[in-house]
C-alpha cells in the first residue's frame, strides 16, 4: 500500500517502512515493464487471493482494490469516480469499482503510469458479490482476457463442510490451474508451489506475532491504521517470496523491540506512548481521509489494538497457515476462511473475542457506504457486541474512496463524543469502585 501518508509528516521512518516502500515500488516497475518482459499478468482480488499458485506460474498479480485505495491515498479517486459516473455508473454503487474503471478510462494507474492489461481475470469470488459485477465490467474493458471463476461458498453456518472444500478444490483443479497453464504455456510445478508455501508460512508466523503484539500495554502497534501497512505485502504479491519473509522478520523485530522499550506505534502525530483508550475496529478504512481519521484517534490518545479489516486477506491469527504438505487443501481453506467470507454471527463472535483478548475499552464500527458486504448488518453487530462484551460501541460512517462521503465535522463529532463517553464511563466506574472500597 502507499507510503505517501507517512511521507507528508515529520515522522521518523523505520527500516521496515523503507523496505516495504522499496518492495512495492520495485514490484510496480516489474508490472509496468511486463509488456516488454513478456511476463503474464493476472487481475485478482485480495480476499481469497491465490498468490502462491500464481507465483508458481511466474505470473504477476494485480489487485484492483489496491489500485483503488492507492488512487484514493494519492487524492486521485474523486476524479476517477467522476469519470466512471460520466460513463453511466450510479452514485449509489461501490466506489472501488468506479475508481478502478475510471482509472482505466483515464489511461492511468495507481502510481500514475498505466498498468498492463490482464492476460487472465481470476475472479476469486470470496465474500463480495460486487467482485462479480466488477469482473463482468473488466471483461468488457478487456475482451481478449481469459476469465477463470473461482466461486468460494459462503460460511453461512459458521463452518466449512467437506462439500464446500470439495467444491473449491474441484474448481482449483479444473478451472484455475488449467487456465493458468493455458496462458503461461507451462505445467504446474507442485514442488515449486510447496516451496512457496513454506515461505508463506514463515512470513505468516511473524505477521501473527506482529498483530498479537497489540495485546501488550502500551500497544507497540496500531492494529488498524498501522496494520494497513503491515498487511500490504502479505495480502498482495509477496506471500511465498524471500522478500516477504525478510520483511516480516524485520517488522517483527522492530515491533518486539518497541514493545520491550514500552514504546507505542508511530502515528501521523508522532509516537503514541501514552495510550488512554484501547479500541477494536470493525470495517475497512476510509482511504481518502486516512491520515485525517488516524490523527483524530491519535489526538485523543486512542490506539487501535485489533481490527477485522486486517483479516480480509486471511484469518491467520486463528491458526490458519499455508501448508506445503497439503498445498491445494490449504489454498481452499485459505479462501474459505477469509474474514469477508464469515457470517455475521461469526464476525460478531470474532470482534467480541478481540475485545476480550486485547483488553479493549471499546470498539468502533466504521461503516462504509460502498461495501455492502461489510456494512449490511453492522448496526445489529454493534448492539449484539455491546450486549456480549458489556463495552460500549461507537459508530462512524464514511466511504472507501469517494471523497464526497467523508464529512470531517460529522466524523469528528461522533468520534470525540465516543471517546469522551468512554472516559466519562471509566471515571464513573472508578468512583463507584472507590465508594465500595474507601
Amino acid at each position: 500500500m502507499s507510503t505517501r501518508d507517512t511521507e507528508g509528516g515529520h515522522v521518523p521512518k523505520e527500516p521496515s517502512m523503507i523496505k516495504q516502500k522499496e518492495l512495492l515500488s520495485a514490484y510496480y516497475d516489474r508490472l509496468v515493464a511486463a509488456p516488454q518482459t513478456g511476463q503474464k499478468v493476472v487481475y485478482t482480488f485480495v480476499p481469497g487471493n491465490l498468490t502462491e499458485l500464481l507465483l508458481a506460474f511466474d505470473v504477476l498479480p494485480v489487485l484492483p482494490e489496491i489500485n483503488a485505495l492507492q488512487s484514493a491515498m494519492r487524492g486521485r479517486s474523486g476524479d476517477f469516480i467522476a469519470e466512471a459516473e460520466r460513463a453511466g455508473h450510479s452514485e449509489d454503487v461501490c466506489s472501488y469499482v468506479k475508481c478502478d474503471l475510471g482509472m482505466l478510462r483515464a489511461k492511468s494507474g495507481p502510481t500514475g503510469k498505466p498498468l498492463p492489461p490482464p492476460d487472465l481475470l481470476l475472479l476469486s469470488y470470496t465474500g463480495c458479490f460486487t467482485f462479480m459485477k466488477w469482473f463482468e465490467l473488466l471483461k468488457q474493458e478487456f475482451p481478449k482476457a481469459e476469465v477463470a471463476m473461482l466461486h468460494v461458498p459462503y460460511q453461512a453456518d459458521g463452518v466449512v463442510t467437506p462439500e464446500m472444500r470439495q467444491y473449491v478444490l474441484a474448481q482449483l483443479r479444473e478451472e484455475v490451474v488449467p487456465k493458468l497453464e493455458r496462458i503461461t504455456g507451462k505445467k504446474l510445478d507442485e514442488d515449486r508451489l510447496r516451496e512457496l508455501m513454506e515461505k508463506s508460512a514463515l512470513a505468516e508466523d511473524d505477521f501473527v506475532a506482529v498483530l498479537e503484539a497489540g495485546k501488550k500495554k502500551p500497544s507497540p502497534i496500531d492494529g488498524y491504521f498501522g496494520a494497513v501497512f503491515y498487511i500490504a505485502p502479505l495480502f498482495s504479491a509477496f506471500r511465498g517470496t524471500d522478500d516477504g519473509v525478510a520483511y516480516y522478520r524485520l517488522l517483527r523485530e522492530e515491533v518486539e523491540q518497541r514493545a520491550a522499550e514500552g514504546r507505542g506505534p508511530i502515528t501521523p502525530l508522532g509516537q503514541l506512548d501514552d495510550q488512554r483508550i484501547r479500541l477494536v475496529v470493525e470495517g475497512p478504512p476510509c482511504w481518502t481521509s486516512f491520515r485525517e481519521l488516524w490523527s483524530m484517534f491519535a489526538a485523543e490518545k486512542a490506539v487501535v489494538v485489533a481490527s477485522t479489516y486486517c483479516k480480509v486477506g486471511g484469518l491467520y491469527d486463528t491458526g490458519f497457515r499455508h501448508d506445503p504438505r497439503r498445498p491445494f487443501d490449504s489454498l481452499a481453506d485459505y479462501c474459505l476462511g477469509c474474514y469477508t467470507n464469515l457470517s455475521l454471527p461469526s464476525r460478531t463472535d470474532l470482534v467480541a473475542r478481540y475485545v476480550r483478548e486485547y483488553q479493549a475499552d471499546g470498539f468502533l464500527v466504521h461503516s462504509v457506504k460502498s461495501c455492502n458486504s461489510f456494512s449490511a448488518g453492522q448496526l445489529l453487530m454493534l448492539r449484539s457486541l455491546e450486549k456480549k462484551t458489556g463495552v460500549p460501541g461507537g459508530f462512524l460512517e464514511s466511504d472507501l474512496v469517494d471523497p464526497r462521503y467523508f464529512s470531517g465535522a460529522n466524523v469528528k463529532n461522533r468520534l470525540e463524543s465516543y471517546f469522551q463517553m468512554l472516559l466519562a464511563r471509566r471515571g464513573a466506574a472508578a468512583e463507584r469502585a472507590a465508594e465500595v472500597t474507601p
Partner: protein
Amino acid sequence: MTYAISDMPPRAATHGFPCFVGIDLGSTTSKAVVLDEDGRILGRGITNSRSNYDLACRIARDEAFVDAQMTRLARELAADPVVEPHVSVLRPSVERSFRYRQHVRQLATLRRVCFELAAGQGTLEGALAAIFDEMEREAETMFSGLRPRPSSEFFRDVAGGQFQALAEKIAAERRVPFETVVGVLDRAMPRVENEPDDLSFEGNARDALGRALGRYAKRSDVLSAAVSAALDRVIAEPPFVVRSVGTGYGRARLPFPKEQIRSEILCHGLGAHATFPQTRTVLDIGGQDTKAVQVDADGVVTGFQMNDRCAAGCGRYLGYVADEMGLGVHELGPLAAQASHRVRISSTCTVFAGAELRDRLALGEKREDILAGLHRAILLRAMSLLARSGGVREELTFTGGVASNQAAVAALRELVDEHYGEGRSEPLRINVSPDSIFTGARGAALFALRGPAAGPARGEKMS
C-alpha cells in the same frame, strides 16, 4: 469592529461572586447558562448564531450574565422582609424595563445605521424616519407588560418584523419601492449586530430599576432605598467566572483548553439528567443533527447515535418546509395540530422537501394534513436513531429546538406509545422542559462546575 472571542471571560476578576458557565454554540442558536456554586441556574442567554460564532457566543454569554445578575438581585430582594412581598411583581417589571432599554439602544443604533446607508436619498430618508418613529412608539407598549412578550426574542427578528410590516404600509404611501426600504434594513442589521454596545447589567440596571420602580405603584421611599441597596450589593460583587466549558457544533471555535470542551452528546445527557433526574434516554433534534443518547442513573452517557451526514429530518428540514409554505417555523406546529387526517410522507430529505410538498398540494391535500404527516416523518427518523441507540425503556427527555414544536411532541408521544408502550401499565414518561433549548449549555456548565477532572455527576445539588 467585531468582538473577538478571545475577550472572554470579560472580567478578569479574581474575586466576586463565583459562577460557572456553559456555552453551547449551535448551528442556529447559541446558548449560555450560568450556575452558582451549588449548581443552581442563575442565568440563561440565547441568540441566533449568525455567521459569526464569536459574536453569538459573546452575546449569549452576556445575556446569561444579565439574567444571572437579575436572579441575584431577586435573591437579595427576597432576603429583605420589606421588599420580599413585592418581588414577584418587581422582578418581571425590572426585566422588562431592562429589555426595553436594550431594545431602545439597539433601535437607536439601527436608525443611525439606516440613515447612514440612505444618506442623500430624500424620499427614502423620509420613509425611514416615519418607520422608525412608529417603531419607537411601538417599543413603549411592547415592553409595557400589557402585551405578551414577543415570541421571538432576538432583536433581529423583533425589530426586523416590525420594520417590514411598517415598510409595506409606509413605502406604498410615500411611493418608495418596498425592496429599497427593506434592502436598507438587510444591510444595516448585520452591522447593528456586530457593533459593540453596552448592554450589560451593570451599565443599565440602575436606570431600568428606576423606571420599574417609577411604574410600580406609588413609589415608597423605604422600598426604593431597600431595592437600591440590594442593587448596590449585587453590583459590588461582580460575577467571577471560575470555569467555562464549551460545547455544540461550533465548540472548536472556542478559545478554551481542550479539557474545557465537551461533546454535545455528553452535555445533553448531563443537562437532561439535571433537569429530569429519572431520564434514561435523551432525544435531541437540533437544526443540523439529531441525537439519541442513553444515560445511566448518574447522567453518564452509555450509548448514542447520530444522524449521518444528511440533515434529513432535522430542524433545518422544517425550516425549508416553512419557507416553501411561506410560514414561520414556529407556525408549523400549531397548524399541524389542526389536521383532520395525516398525509403519509415518505421522504424527509431536505432536497426533495419542496417537490414532495408541491406534489401533495397539487393533489389537493390540505396544508395542515401535510404538515401532520411531515412531523410524523421527522419523528420516524428520530425513532430509528432511538432504536439504534438502544430504544426507550424508561423516561425520555426531548430537547433541542424542535422540542418546542407541539406537533413534534405529539408525534413523538404517539410513536413512543406505538413502539415501546406495549405491555406497560402506564405510558412512558416524556419530559419536555420549556427551557429545553438550554439543555446542552446546562450540561456544559455542570461540567465546568465539576472541574477539569470531569468526574461523574455525583452529589451535586440539582434544582
